C-alpha cells in the first residue's frame, strides 16, 4: 500500500508569512504521512492548524492519528492548540514517547496549554489524547507500519523517525546538526567538495529510503554563522542521502531568513553536489501544499 506524504509546514524556527515565502510556505514543521487509513503526523508546528481543518473537511467519521514529535521546541508544537480535530469527541490521538514509559512529549505538549500560555486547558480537549510509546527497542508496528526512532544531535535532543511498509520507506529527520556528527568535523572547512562521512548507524537508519525529509536549514555560508544552533547545512544532508542510497531527498526546515529564491538557490547547490558525485539521488525543496505518493 502506498505512502502519501503531504507537507503542511516546511519552515524552521518561526512562522514566516508574506510574499517572500509565498511559494515554499511560511508555516512551521508539520508533515502528514498516510498509509491506507492510518494517519501519522510528524510534528505539530503551525502547519498543523491547516492540516486539522483539512482533516475535518475530508473525513466525518471518528479519526485516529499517531503523533511523532521530533522534539518540543516551539516551532514543532505551536500548532497543536489550534488543531481542531483535538476538540472533537470520538477522535483519538496518540502521542508517542521514544522508549517504554516515556511520557515526556505528552507532558510537555499539555504544558503549553496551561492558562499562562493558552486560554484552553489541555484537559478540556474533547478528543482522547493519549500517551503511548515505541517501546524499549524504539520500534513499534502501528497498523502494519514499522515505526522506528533515532536520537539526533540538537540542543535538548531530537528524534528522527522511519516508517516502513511493503518495501516502502519514509524517513522524517528534522532538527539535526549533522555536521557535528561527521567522522571528520573539520573536513568541510579544509575541502568543501570532499565527501563527508556520516555515522554508519544513522546512514543505516536512512538506508534505502524512498523519501528522506531532512533538516537542511542552512546554506554553506549560513552554517559558518550558525554552527552549534542545532541545524544542518543542506550540502551535508545531500552526503547523508547519497551514502544511504536514498531515492528522493526533501530539504526541509527552511531558514526563516530565506526567501523563495534563496531556497531555490540552496537546492541548486545541492543538485550540483549530487551531479558532481554522479549520484542518482533526486533533491528538491519541501514545499507547503505538496503531496507525494510513494508506491
Amino acid at each position, binding site marked *: 500500500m502506498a505512502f502519501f506524504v503531504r507537507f503542511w509546514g516546511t519552515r524552521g524556527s518561526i512562522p514566516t508569512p508574506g510574499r517572500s515565502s509565498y511559494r515554499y510556505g511560511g508555516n512551521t514543521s508539520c508533515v502528514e504521512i498516510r498509509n491506507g487509513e492510518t494517519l501519522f503526523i510528524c510534528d505539530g508546528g503551525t502547519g498543523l492548524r491547516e492540516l486539522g481543518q483539512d482533516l475535518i473537511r475530508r473525513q466525518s467519521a471518528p479519526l485516529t492519528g499517531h503523533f511523532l514529535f521530533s522534539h518540543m521546541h516551539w516551532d514543532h508544537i505551536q500548532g497543536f492548540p489550534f488543531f481542531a480535530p483535538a476538540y472533537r469527541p470520538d477522535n483519538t490521538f496518540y502521542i508517542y514517547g521514544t522508549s517504554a514509559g516515556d511520557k515526556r512529549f505528552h507532558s510537555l505538549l499539555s504544558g503549553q496549554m496551561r492558562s499562562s500560555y493558552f486560554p484552553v486547558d489541555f484537559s478540556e480537549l474533547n478528543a482522547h489524547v493519549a500517551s503511548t510509546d515505541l517501546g524499549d527497542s524504539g520500534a513499534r508496528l502501528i497498523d502494519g507500519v514499522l515505526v522506528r526512532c533515532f536520537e539526533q544531535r540538537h540542543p535538548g535532543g531530537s528524534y528522527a523517525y522511519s516508517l516502513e511498509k511493503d518495501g516502502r520507506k519514509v524517513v522524517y529527520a528534522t532538527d539535526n546538526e549533522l555536521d557535528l556528527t561527521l567522522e571528520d568535523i573539520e573536513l568541510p572547512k579544509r575541502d568543501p567538495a570532499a565527501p563527508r562521512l556520516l555515522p554508519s548507524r544513522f546512514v543505516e537508519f536512512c538506508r534505502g529510503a524512498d523519501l528522506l525529509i531532512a533538516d537542511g536549514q542552512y546554506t554553506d555560508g549560513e552554517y559558518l554563522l550558525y554552527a552549534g544552533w542545532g541545524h544542518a547545512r543542506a550540502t551535508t544532508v545531500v552526503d547523508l542521502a547519497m551514502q544511504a542510497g536514498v531515492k528522493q531527498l526533501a530539504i526541509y526546515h527552511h531558514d526563516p531568513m530565506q526567501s523563495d529564491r534563496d531556497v531555490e538557490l540552496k537546492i541548486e547547490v545541492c543538485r550540483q553536489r549530487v551531479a558532481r558525485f554522479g549520484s542518482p539521488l*533526486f533533491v528538491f525543496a519541501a514545499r507547503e501544499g*505538496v503531496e507525494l505518493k510513494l508506491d
Partner: protein
Amino acid sequence: MSGVGRVGDTTGQMFKDIGALTGENEIPVIPVQDLSRPCVLQQVRGPQAPQLFELVKDVLIVGRAEDADIRVPSTSLSRRHLRLERGQGTYRAIDLDSANGLYLNEVRVHSAVLRDGDNLQLGNAVFLFHEGK
C-alpha cells in the same frame, strides 16, 4: 465616461475630501470586477501549443478524453490525467493515477496547491500556471 464616476457614497468619502482639497470633484472609479482576472493555464509545449486556458470552473479535468475540460490529444496523457480544484484563491492539481504522472517544477507529485509561475508537466505537454486576482 466609462470607468469614471462621481464619488458620492460613504466609501468614497476620503477621496471626496481629497477632491475638495485639490479642487477636483471627479476621480476615476474602476469597478472591482474589472480588476479581477481568472487563473490561467498556459500550454507551452505539446500538441496544439501554445494556447491559453482561462480557469473559470471550480473543477476541471485535463486529459486526452473527448470530454476533458482541457483536452490534449496525446497518448502520453491519460484520458483523465489531472483534476484542478479551485480553493483559497488558487487551484489544487491532483494526479488522477495517470500512467505518466504529474510533475510540478520537475518533482513528481500526487497533488499540489499551485502557485504563480508553476511548471506542470503531463506526458509531453507542459503548462505554466498563472494565478488570477
